[in-house]
């Protein structure tokens, strides 16, 4: 893992920032909602009280029959299919019957559906009617009340017979339709709205069980326009107010769930609402049934309010990105529950606010993350770059035998890297100094040795003429020999330095490399003794910008080297191969392979693979291949050695010397 990656990983810590912010935004949102809910509950309480105070026509306490508004025409035929839209809100009676009431402009419709496993049929006029399956229907309008017996022995039209004495406006018979199916029967009838019925009762009696004349009498309820008007006077703005009966039937409604118009730009986009819903909002209930125009608002908060406890809930609104706050408040009058006020306040303010806060936070923290990451990346890049420079300088110095090619980088930096650089620089200074000392030691030494050598030599020369006895002659010759050898040794010692100087001063010309290599190879034939020399040269000339003397000298060194390792009847091979950017000269010879450990150091100064020189030989200081390397490098190339089948191959990769402009 690089430094840069590590620092980027560290930069991820800034992610804690948005998380913290997110938690904060959520908390803030919760607080805001809490405040809003409390405000709405207060409004609801005020409204409930004022409804009582202004003596609004509140629904009666206790159970009631609710009359639904019918939008489709209802045919009185005993079949329930035209009741289908209303059947969802059918009101149960006992355990086996359902009652539906509906009204249109002129009529009040009744539909009673009874499930009965066994049937006892009798017509209403029958004596036994009261002990057969029958319905008791009671209606009341003001002070008038009447009961009817509704029964039928067969499906089809039937008539309900009044059971009580005449009662004002109420009819003494009611035409009804009676139908049966496999699991029971249903009756349907209608009464004109002009009767102004206010109570309705129904009793289902199967086979004359219980009180055959009893009926479940309850006040009739319907959506009340007057109460709605009352509500609209009292209701706060921007809130939908509904009054529900104690059974949660819708009695009155005012206001609309409509948000103040917003410009399109202010409306939260789908992303914002998604973010809000997934990240910010607490639990939101589904809009579900409550969104439709249901006559019965059976919601959890309403149920709780009907038990006497004010309650609130948050729902998702119909409009995108909005929420609805609902507050339900029981209406009590003289200790009795008369219904519930349900206030619903649509709001976009909260999610918007929260969204904005969250968005702002997200953007800010993302920006911070980007900036922090960017800064860290820059920092890491710079750090890496500086470290690389340091490393490259160190490696260059290393390749350069500890000599620096210019000032060490970062030496002026004030931080730890600067310290490191300074330490490095000091180290390399020491190493470089030592290397320089070693490097120049040979030439210094040779220089210093030259003078005493000259003394010995000139003394020996003089001794020659001093009239030595004859037996001293051989000693003189030996001394000369020794001095000559010493001289050769001293010359060899300073050779590398001189070569370096000569190589630096070498001048290049455009020549045919093949010509040089061929010439050298011809020259070597006389020196190779019994060894065979093969040449591999390209047919066409290889024009290059080189210093022919240097190339020839390098070849001489390689050849000397090769000959000394080749057995007396072995082979040598000199090859020139053009390459895309220059040429390779390869000198291969039969002989022992190179030890692996020496591969990299072979071309260093003062490295020799040879055994101790045999007496009488020129000393071998391991400078030959070093000179070869210098020559190759002067030609922007390199020298390498490798083991081949049965021998060794040394290769000079040459690219040619850089052309110098003629001044």
């Amino acid at each position, binding site marked *: 893992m690089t430094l840069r990656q590590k620092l980027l990983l560290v930069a991820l810590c800034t992610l804690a920032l948005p998380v913290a912010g997110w938690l904060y935004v959520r908390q803030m949102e919760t607080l805001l909602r809490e405040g809003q809910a409390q405000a709405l509950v207060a409004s609801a309480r005020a409204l409930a009280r004022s409804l009582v105070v202004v003596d609004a026509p509140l629904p009666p306490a206790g159970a009631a029959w609710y009359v639904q508004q019918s939008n489709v025409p209802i045919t009185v035929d005993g079949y329930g299919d035209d009741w289908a839209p209303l059947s969802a809100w059918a009101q149960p009676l006992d355990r086996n019957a359902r009652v539906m009431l509906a009204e249109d402009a002129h009529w009040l419709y009744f539909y009673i559906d009874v499930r009965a496993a066994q049937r006892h049929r009798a017509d209403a006029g029958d004596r036994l009617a009261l002990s057969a399956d029958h319905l008791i229907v009671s209606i009341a309008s003001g002070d008038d009340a009447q009961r009817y017996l509704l029964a039928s022995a067969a499906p089809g039209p039937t008539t309900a017979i009044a059971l009580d004495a005449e009662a004002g406006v109420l009819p003494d018979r009611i035409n009804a339709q009676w139908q049966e199916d496999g699991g029971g029967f249903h009756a349907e009838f209608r009464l004109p709205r002009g009767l102004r019925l206010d109570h309705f009762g129904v009793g289902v009696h199967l086979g004359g069980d219980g009180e055959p004349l009893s009926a479940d009498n309850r006040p009739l309820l319907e959506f009340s326009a007057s109460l709605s008007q009352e509500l609209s006077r009292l209701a706060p703005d921007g809130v939908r107010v509904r009054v529900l009966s104690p059974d949660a039937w819708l009695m009155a409604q005012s206001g609309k769930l409509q948000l103040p118009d917003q410009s399109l730009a202010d409306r939260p986009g789908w992303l914002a609402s998604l973010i809000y819903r997934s990240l910010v909002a607490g639990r939101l209930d589904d809009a579900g049934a409550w969104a439709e125009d249901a006559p019965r608002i059976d919601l959890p908060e309403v149920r709780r309010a009907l038990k006497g406890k004010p309650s609130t809930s948050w729902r998702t609104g119909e409009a995108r990105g909005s929420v609805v706050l609902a507050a339900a408040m029981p209406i009590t009058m003289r200790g009795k529950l008369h219904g519930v006020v349900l206030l619903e306040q649509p709001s976009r303010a909260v999610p918007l606010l929260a969204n904005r806060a969250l968005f702002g936070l997200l953007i800010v923290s993302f920006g911070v993350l980007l900036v922090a990451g960017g800064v860290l990346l820059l920092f890491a890049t710079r750090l890496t770059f500086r470290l690389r420079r340091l490393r490259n300088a160190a490696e260059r110095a290393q390749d350069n035998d500890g000599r620096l090619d210019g000032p060490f980088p970062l030496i002026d930096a004030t931080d730890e890297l600067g310290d490191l650089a300074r330490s490095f620089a000091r180290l390399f200074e020491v190493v470089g100094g030592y290397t320089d000392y070693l490097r120049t030691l040979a030439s210094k030494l040779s*220089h210093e040795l030259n*003078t005493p050598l000259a003394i010995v030599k*000139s003394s020996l020369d*003089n001794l020659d003429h001093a009239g030595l006895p004859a037996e001293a002659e051989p000693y003189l010759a030996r001394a000369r020999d020794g001095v000559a050898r010493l001289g050769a040794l001293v010359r060899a010692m300073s050779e590398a330095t001189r070569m370096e100087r*000569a190589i630096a001063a070498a001048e290049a010309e455009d020549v045919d490399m093949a010509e040089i290599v061929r*010439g*050298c190879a*011809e020259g070597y034939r006389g020196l190779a003794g019994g060894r065979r020399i093969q040449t591999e040269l390209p047919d066409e000339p290889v024009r290059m910008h080189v210093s022919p*003397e240097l190339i020839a000298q390098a070849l001489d060194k390689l050849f000397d080297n090769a000959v000394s390792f080749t057995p007396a009847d072995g082979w040598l091979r000199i090859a020139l191969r053009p390459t895309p950017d220059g040429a390779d000269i390869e000198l291969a010879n039969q002989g022992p392979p190179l030890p692996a450990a020496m591969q990299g150091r072979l071309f260093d100064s003062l490295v020799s693979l040879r055994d101790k020189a045999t007496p009488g030989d020129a000393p071998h200081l391991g400078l030959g291949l070093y000179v070869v390397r210098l020559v190759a490098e002067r030609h922007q190339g390199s020298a390498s050695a490798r083991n081949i089948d049965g021998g060794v191959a040394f290769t000079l990769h040459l690219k040619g010397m850089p052309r110098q402009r003629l001044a």
Partner: protein
Amino acid sequence: MARSIAIVEDEPLIRANYVEALNRFGYETRGYGSRGEASTAFAMRLPELVIIDIGLGDEPEGGFDLCRELRAKSATLPIIFLTARDSDFDVISGLRLGADDYLSKDTSLHQLAARIAALFRRIESLKVPASSETVIEHGPLRLESERMRVTWNGTEIPLTVTEFWMVHTLVRFPGHVKNRDQLMREAELVVDDATITSHIKRIRKKFVALAPDFDAIETVHGVGYRWTP
């Protein structure tokens, strides 16, 4: 009358050896240990040949200054440089001091004597007209062995004794390749190949300086050099 030679050399043992040897060869030789000492002596009387060591005591290049002084006094005084390092050859040639020869200190006394004799011979021969049998001519080149003079199209090429002998070796058998050993022997030198190469390079430069299209000395890579007329 014996010819007078001055040796300016800071190493007393070497100085003594040279002085004695040259005396034995029949020259009247004086040794001087420092530049000041030599300058003082030369102000009195100029010797006929001077051998100067480049490094004089605490002056690493005192010999050069002395050489300049002498050249200012006399344009024809033969001067031989002794150098401790072969690399000084390049330095000296770069300075164009007008010395007649450069020798390294491990040159044997015998070789030194040969050079001294040659220089004196040259001085002698310059006094008389050139004798024709010692003249070699190749096209624009004219080489007078006695006077150690080389001219190219009539212009004199200022060669040192060593350089003259090398050219002489090459020119005597034009077209023949002379390897470095042969050149060394002929020029009475004991140096390594690189020094021979730099000598040849210098010779070429001296020719090219006066004849820009000069290319008569050809390198035969791996073998040596030859004169191609």
